[in-house]
Structure formats: structure tokens, C-alpha cells
């Protein structure tokens, strides 16, 4: 008998007696107020991330300009900004190791936790969200969801090959509880609140 058959047979033979129905999960009241942008901003701040409102239409990237100007290699996965490393043209994920700043767009944000969601399609190269030194995330304020429970009703989790919630930068406090940003992944995460460009019909 294969391991598969052995394990399944044992699980059937050893099933505990009793009736254990799957509970219905009620929809819980949001723990956040109506101003989702403010809630999102405060909560992401507590997780080590930053939130900036987009600059004027002529220079929406003004709040992160100093970060971008200080970067030698910028990889952009968004049409709003042109970097100097074309993610679509790379042979493999290790080629983003020298990226200083990556610019990506989040599918949505979550006010309860200050999280943003990316899928494989958004990142183009998943590894760029970790190997880059700094991450700039575009988020449409209209895309902020109330809570985690609501987030897990979104279709991305059943469709994307890879989906990930980022809540601030890579962090560790494994040495005496001292909080350090940039453990293995990005050293900073900045969300720039910038409306999505309307798709051409």
C-alpha cells in the first residue's frame, strides 16, 4: 500500500467519534472607523510602513522623490513610473538583486491591519518585492478594504499563483527583542496613495 493509501486508511479508521460540523463564520463588525485612509495610515505606521499622499498631477511621485533620486537601479512594475530595469525582460529572479527601489501597485489595502496585497501578475517577478532594498507601493484609496475577513472574500486568493499580504517592511527582533527593519527583505515600505489610471475602454 502506498503512503497515501496508508495515511488515508488510518485517518478513516482513527476518526474520533462524534459529530463535528463545520461552523458558519458570522460577518464581524468592522473594528475601524469610516475614514479608511486614516485607519490604514495609522495601522501601517505601527507596523513600520509609511503612507504618503500623491503629489500634484504633474508630479505624483514628489513625496518619494528623494528615495527615487538616491537610487541607481529602479525596477518598476507600474505604468505610472518608468524605472531603468525592465522586469518583463529578465532571465530570472536573481537579476533583481541589485535593485535599490522597486515600484509596484497593490491590488487592495486592508484598514484593519495596514496590509497591501500583491499577486504574481502585479509583481511580474515575485522576488523583486524582497530582494529590492526599498519598496514603493501605489495604492488607490478606493481599493482599501475594511478588514481581513473582507480581504479573504476577494477572488485573488483562489486565482493567483502567488498572492501576498505585506504589512510594513521585512522585520526581525530575534536578537533580544530589538526591532530591526530589513531582516532579509526590503528595508522600507512606503505606500503612495495614487488613483489607478482608468483603463481605456
Amino acid at each position, binding site marked *: 500500500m502506498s*503512503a*497515501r493509501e*496508508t*495515511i488515508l486508511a*488510518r*485517518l*478513516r*479508521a482513527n*476518526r*474520533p467519534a462524534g459529530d*463535528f460540523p*463545520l461552523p458558519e*463564520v*458570522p460577518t464581524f*463588525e468592522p*473594528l*475601524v*472607523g469610516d475614514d479608511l485612509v486614516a*485607519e490604514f495610515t*495609522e*495601522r501601517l505606521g*505601527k*507596523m513600520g510602513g509609511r503612507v504618503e499622499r500623491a503629489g500634484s498631477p504633474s508630479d505624483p511621485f514628489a513625496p518619494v522623490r528623494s528615495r527615487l533620486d538616491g537610487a541607481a537601479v529602479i525596477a518598476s512594475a507600474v505604468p505610472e513610473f518608468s524605472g531603468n530595469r525592465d522586469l518583463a525582460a529578465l532571465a530570472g*529572479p*536573481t537579476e533583481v*538583486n541589485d535593485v535599490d527601489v522597486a515600484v509596484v501597485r497593490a491590488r487592495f489595502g486592508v484598514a*484593519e491591519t495596514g*496590509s497591501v496585497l500583491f499577486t*504574481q501578475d502585479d509583481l511580474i517577478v*515575485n522576488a523583486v*518585492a*524582497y*530582494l529590492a532594498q526599498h519598496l514603493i507601493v501605489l495604492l488607490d484609496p478606493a481599493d482599501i478594504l475594511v478588514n*481581513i*475577513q473582507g480581504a*479573504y472574500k476577494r477572488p485573488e*486568493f*483562489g486565482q493567483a*499563483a*502567488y*498572492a*501576498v499580504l*505585506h*504589512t*510594513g*517592511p*521585512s*522585520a*526581525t*527582533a*530575534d*536578537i*533580544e*527583542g*530589538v*526591532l530591526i527593519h530589513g*531582516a*532579509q*527583505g*526590503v528595508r522600507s515600505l512606503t505606500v503612495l496613495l495614487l488613483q489607478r489610471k482608468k483603463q481605456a475602454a
Partner: protein
Amino acid sequence: MSADDLTPRQTEDGLHPEVHAPSDESARGPGGERLQHAEAASKPIRADAPREPQPRGAKVRGNRPIDQAEAAERFLAAPMHQKAHDERLWDVRRKRDVAAHGIPEWEELREIASQIKTHTLTHLDHYLEQFEAAAKANGVHVHWAEDGAEHNRIVLDILRKHGATSLVKSKSMLTEECGFRHFMAAHDIDVIETDLGERIQQLDDEEPSHVVMPAVHKTRLDVAEVFARTLGTDPDNDDAHYLAESQRETTRPLILKADAGLTGCNFAIAETGTVVTCTNEGNADLSGNVPPLQIHSIGIEKIIPRVEHLGVFIRLLSRSALGSPITQYTSHFRGLRPGTEMHMVLVDNGRSERLAMEEFWTSLKCIRCGACMNTCPVYRRSGGLSYGATYSGPIGLIIDPTFNKRKYSTLPFSSTMNGSCTNVCPVKINIHEQIFAWRKVLAEEHQIPLLKQGMMKAAGAVLSRPSAYRAAIQTADSALRILPRFAVYNPANTWGKKREMPHAPRQSFHAWYRRNRMKKGSDA
């Protein structure tokens, strides 16, 4: 504005003022406010010089019973380590309380999480088949392993087929169970841990001492010593930022050139075939997204039916573990990256047998948050390595004997039975009741030392009859008042070690109640 305030009330002074540091290196927000997400301490905790050698874990001698008390005594004999450890874990426990109290439906969430887990565990054959079908439809290779040895062989086979000789991995208690690193080292596969705490433990050739904070028993001085010896860092520089950065800089090249990446699994979703990992460093994402070959090791009890159930478990996990509303990264691996190969290994390793244990099967609900460890007075004062087992603390006491009844026969006695573990468990495992049940099982199967057996038999006889209990209490209380120290604090009374026995009251509550409240004097 109602964002969770993660700060425990500062009116509480903590446990050990000696380890409160005046200076603070923790990361700050743009406004200069002190941040304390991830596993950060809410205030600086520092075991200062002079350097105190790190107490090592339990002596493991084959199948012989682990002497946890002996290792605990050595931990207690290292006061700086013990105090810093105690302080740090108690701080995390308090952060957990603040986070839990911030959610009105917390108790309801625990109950729902418990019910989802019991339902899934009692229908695990069905959900595993569903998971397998979904994963295969996603283009994933699915493997089944009866035990740790088979898991290791399967992974080695996959690596050999690809000519892979190096593997980066994220923290996984399952692979610790399987002795994965040791096995791979014997087959010339270079395994690199990518979680900072786990990497520290790997470089020091030690097991993780905590399921969430693997190196929590080490001070910065210990880490500086390990890194100086293994990574060539400055032995006199114990700055936490310097040490963490040194690890980042030395691990990054290993991640880039690794042939394969492996992660554990926090939750496996049956309906979508998804593996979910929760990390603060993003190291599971590096392991899963950089090397061309991707492997996920999954304990079969990690299955939950639907994506929507993550809306329950993700809210509970990090709040219970660290007092954070969520980990920095919650990652959902479902399908392939272009041009890569993805494998999932479903591992039993004793779980299907545990399901048959009427009193113990609900321990399979465990989501490895570590809350029971942080709250446990024994764990905080003895360190995870004193248990000499993969799982330490209260959850370890009830899981470890299922792997080896003789070797871990003494562990269920390392508990004060205060029940705090049960109260903080996010999936409502009756941990302290199972600890007690294990004591009975082990006594009946003669797995415990004679002294303890005699004491338990006598205690059982006394506790089962109220009149005998009252007589004994009266005698014991009188005895505690009049006995000389050597009669109370001797090796036969393990509870007299490292602590003072309580002052005996002049009158028991029962006697007081009879005199003051039961005028009729009836002994109902």
C-alpha cells in the same frame, strides 16, 4: 481613531528590573515613536555584561527519559539569561493580552477556530484528497510521507533529480521533527536557514528553543560569540543592528545561488491547494520565489477547508503569538512561477495515530503560535532547550509523548497545572487537562520514576476522599509551620527547589467556612 494600541500598560514594572536597559535601539517610526511590531519587545530588555556562558539544553541520551529538571536547574543557575528570558516572554504575553482585548469577538473567534479545526481533523481524509486534487490541478507535484524519514527521502529524491546541492529554507517545526538538516548534511546537501533566529541556532548547532522565536534564550552577547566564530564578525561588537546586518549580508548570496527553496506551512487550503506561510522577515517568500525549484513541507493537520477560514486564523495567529495584528508577510503559494517546478509533501509522522487517542487528539488543532509557552512559568524559567524535544513548553508536554512515551515520560510533570496555557490557546486546546491525563497514562504504563509514582498514588488516595484531604491539609499546614528547613527543602520535594513554600494559613478555608458561615455545622 481606534488602531490597536500594542503597548502594555507601562505602570507595570515587569519582572526583573535588572534587565531593563536604559538605551533603546529598536526601530522607530517617522515621527520618532517607538515601534513594536513583529517580535519586538515593548521596552528595552538587555542581559548586560559581564558575559555569562549560555546555559545549554537537556542532555539527550538515546531513548532514556529526558531530565528536564536538571537542565532547568542549569538555566536557573545563569541568572542573566534566566531573567532576560523570563522578562522577554512575559512582555510578549502581555502584548498578546492587549491585542486580544482589542477585539470584542476574540472569544467567539477562538471557539470558531476550534470548531473549524475539530471538523477538519475528523474529516481529514476528505480534505486531504480535496487539497491534493486542487494542487495537482494547479500543476503542483504532490507527495505523501508516512514519517519523517520518508519526508526526507522524498525531498532528497527531488533534489537529486534536479542535481541540486544547496537548499534555502524558512523556519519549519515539521522539518525539525523530521531531523531534516542532519539528514541532508549526511547526504551532502547544503541546507541554509533563512530566519535570523533559526540561522543563529543552525550556526550554533542547537535546536530552536521556541516555535516562533528560535533563539529567544540567547543574549546578544551569545549571538555575537556565535557570529564571530561562524561568520567572522567582530567578537566585541554586540550591537543588534550590526549582528542582524551581518547575517543579512552573508545569507543573501546563499539565497541567490541556492538550487532549491523549501518552506513549512502554517495553513493549507483544501479548496484551492494553497500553502500559507506567516513570517516577519519575508524569508519564506525568498525561499519560495528565488530558487528554480520550490518545495513546501506540510503537516497533514495544517489543512483548513476554505480561504474564508483564513479570515479567522490569520486574525488569531500573530495576535496570540506576538501581540501584533498580523505578521509582516502573509504569503499564499498556490501555483508555479514561469519555468519552475513546485512540490508539496504531505507528512503524517504520527498524526494519524494521534487521532485515535481519545484524550489527546485535539492537540492536533495546534497552530504553533507559542502563546502557551510565553505564559508558562516553568517554560519562562527553564528555557525551551531544557525539554530536550522538538516541541517545548505546555504544547510540547502533550505532543512529545506521542512521539516517544519513554523518552518524554517526565515532561508532563514540568507543569504547575495553573491552566494559563489553556486560557491563551487560540484554538482552545485543553492543554493543562491533557497534561494531567498524560500523567495518569504514564503512571499506569509505569513510565515514571518510583518516587513520583508513590507520591501520586498517595495523592490520588487523599484527593479522592474529602475527609482524608482535609485531614491531610491540616497536617501539612501544621507540618509546614513547625518542620525544620531540611525536612521541607530536601531532594524528595521537587517543589521546594528554587522557591519558598507558601506560608501555611493558621486555618484552612474549609475550617473557616464551617466556623463562620455554616452555623448548623452540617458537612454537606
